């Protein structure tokens, strides 16, 4: 660790992993509800458990991004963080607000939560991924602005590297686009149209900048490849991501009441969305192959390469599978979408946060460049367990999706939704058991933090 203030990243990473565990537990609950419909009913109905599952994902990724920023920005800027105290204060505010929100979801009916938190005054609740009470949303904005201030002041005062600038742009975009979550018109089409300005322009826009910056930072450290080379490819890759991704929003505007020309614009541009992900994969492997040093943290390299490959598969390939309007006409809102969502989020964002944690943790915890060999081995095992599991979860959901689409939408005698769900239950069972293996992988990952090795690496 080069700068004392980088240590504020530590609680963020711990919180991220803690919430990740929660996310997977609730994933297992809803996975079970898919096959045993009345599981935990009526105490935790599916809609509540799913909301916890997705919201925890978003919150822990945000914790991860913030932790990553606090770790890498001082090192890139070559100066201490503007205010470590503010960073710690924001951590507790965000954690408590997040925890209270989750408790609210679980403790009272959602309608009660809406009433208690004054959703009447400014109704923003009840929309997918943006279920948080309005007051929580405001809290998120405040935390995000204070966070940006802290990071921004550090960058302004220090060395302005490409990685820092791109990261700052991405984080700023994240905060600005979130403001559209406060726009909730009664007109459903307008509501949906601008809802995607948050959701799509996050995950297929500004988050990719954050991901690219984190990956570039880690690759520079791990491979020793010239910063100039990595930074210019970072620019090119994120340029391609935005060129294809912004108009690519159109692939969400096919069937929600927006004009039909989006079927063409959306198809054409989103068909090209795999390109930046493919470039990122080639980029990551090329840099690792051209490495100028052998970094002792092998696990971090594995996570980094895993990010590149899985992001391409999940976001690129599985996205392309159903992005063309004529295909999407049949697959829209089916298990195919769920399949894509699981692998894309895992590949692009879960893995990039873990990559960062894996790289930074030895510095934060042991002040060494890498953990002991046994811990790394466990980390790598957990990588393969989780990654192979998510691949199979995706394949099973794709299988379920193909059957669902055929039986419910394509066949000459379309069957009702619930009838189809019963027919494809086998796939849901397979998905559930694979999810259990994923959870085992996650437990192994957590265990790796506590694993003691025989050899101890020299302090850096």
């Amino acid at each position: 660790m080069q700068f004392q203030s980088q240590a504020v990243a530590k609680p963020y990473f711990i919180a991220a992993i803690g919430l990740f565990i929660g996310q997977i537990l609730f994933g297992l609950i809803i996975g079970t509800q898919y096959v045993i419909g009345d599981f935990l009913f009526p105490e935790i109905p599916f809609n509540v458990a799913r909301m916890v599952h997705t919201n925890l994902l978003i919150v822990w990724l945000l914790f991860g991004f913030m932790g990553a920023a606090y770790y890498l920005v001082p090192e890139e800027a070559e100066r201490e963080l503007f205010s470590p105290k503010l960073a710690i204060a924001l951590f507790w505010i965000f954690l408590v607000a997040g925890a209270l929100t989750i408790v609210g979801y679980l403790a009272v009916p959602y309608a009660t939560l809406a009433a208690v938190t004054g959703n009447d005054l400014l109704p923003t609740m009840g929309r997918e991924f943006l279920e948080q009470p309005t007051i929580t949303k405001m809290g998120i904005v405040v935390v995000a602005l204070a966070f940006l201030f802290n990071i921004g002041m550090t960058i302004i005062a220090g060395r302005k590297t490409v990685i820092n600038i791109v990261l700052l742009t991405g984080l700023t975009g994240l905060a600005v686009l979130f403001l559209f979550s406060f726009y909730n018109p009664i007109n459903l089409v307008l509501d949906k149209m601008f809802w995607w300005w948050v959701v799509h322009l996050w995950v297929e826009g500004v988050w990719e900048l954050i991901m690219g910056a984190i990956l570039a930072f880690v690759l520079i450290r791990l491979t020793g490849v010239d910063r100039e080379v990595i930074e210019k490819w970072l620019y090119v890759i994120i340029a391609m991501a935005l060129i294809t991704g912004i108009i690519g929003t159109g692939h969400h505007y096919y069937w929600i009441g927006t004009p039909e020309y989006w079927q063409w614009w959306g198809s054409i541009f989103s068909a090209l969305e795999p390109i930046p992900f493919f470039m990122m994969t080639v980029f990551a492997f090329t840099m690792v192959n051209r490495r100028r040093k052998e970094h002792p943290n092998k696990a971090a390299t594995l996570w980094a390469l895993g990010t590149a490959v899985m992001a391409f598969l999940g976001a690129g390939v599985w996205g392309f599978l159903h992005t063309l309007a004529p295909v999407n006409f049949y697959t829209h809102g089916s298990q195919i979408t769920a399949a894509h969502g699981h692998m894309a989020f895992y590949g692009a964002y879960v893995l990039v946060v873990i990559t960062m944690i894996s790289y930074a943790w030895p510095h934060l915890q042991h002040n060494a460049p890498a953990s002991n060999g046994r811990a790394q081995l466990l980390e790598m095992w957990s990588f393969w367990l989780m990654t192979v599991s998510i691949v199979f979860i995706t394949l099973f959901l794709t299988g379920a999706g193909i059957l669902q689409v055929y039986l419910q939408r394509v066949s000459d005698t379309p069957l009702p939704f619930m009838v189809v769900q019963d027919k494809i239950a086998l796939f849901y069972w397979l998905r559930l058991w694979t999810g259990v293996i994923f959870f085992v992988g996650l437990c192994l990952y957590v265990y790796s933090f506590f694993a003691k090795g025989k050899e101890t690496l020299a302090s850096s």
Partner: protein
Amino acid sequence: MDTPLHDDTGALPGDFAIWIFIFAELLVFGVFFLAYAFARANNVELFNESQLQLDRISGAANTLVLITSSYFVVRAVAAIRDDDSRRCVHWLAAAIGMGSVFLVIKMFEFADKFSAGISLSTNTFFMFYLSLTFFHFMHVILGMVILAAVLFKARSGGYSAASHIGVETGASYWHMVDLVWLILFPLVYVIH
């Protein structure tokens, strides 16, 4: 001096970064063109009928304008290779001027269509016509911005025969804008 260094290496003229952009743009336009062509194959009558409402003279005139402006850019590159910044600036200004002519003609064409109540939602043909030409229109503007940036740098003596990669970069992009129109014109205005 008449064969700058890069010519021997067989490298692409200008900065490679612009070529990544150019290839991406060509890919987008290529896919867009084929989307048009195959959408037309399913709607031949609608496309033929709607196409009659296009102003082919404007389209052809704009083709000539763009070809000429591309030619001016070629002369600008030749001028800087002769170490003549002044002439380079003049040719660039002429090219940008032709770009403005293109925009004006195109705006008349758009105004004509809009006043006839034609929009993106009129039918599939006009969706493509407006999408493709507007998308290209924006590229002309971007190309002009790039050329203007090159012009200002050239005017302040920023380029020389030995170092003029920026001029080639801007020129390559502008030629791409021309190239795309060369396909767009026959595809949308002529073939039926």
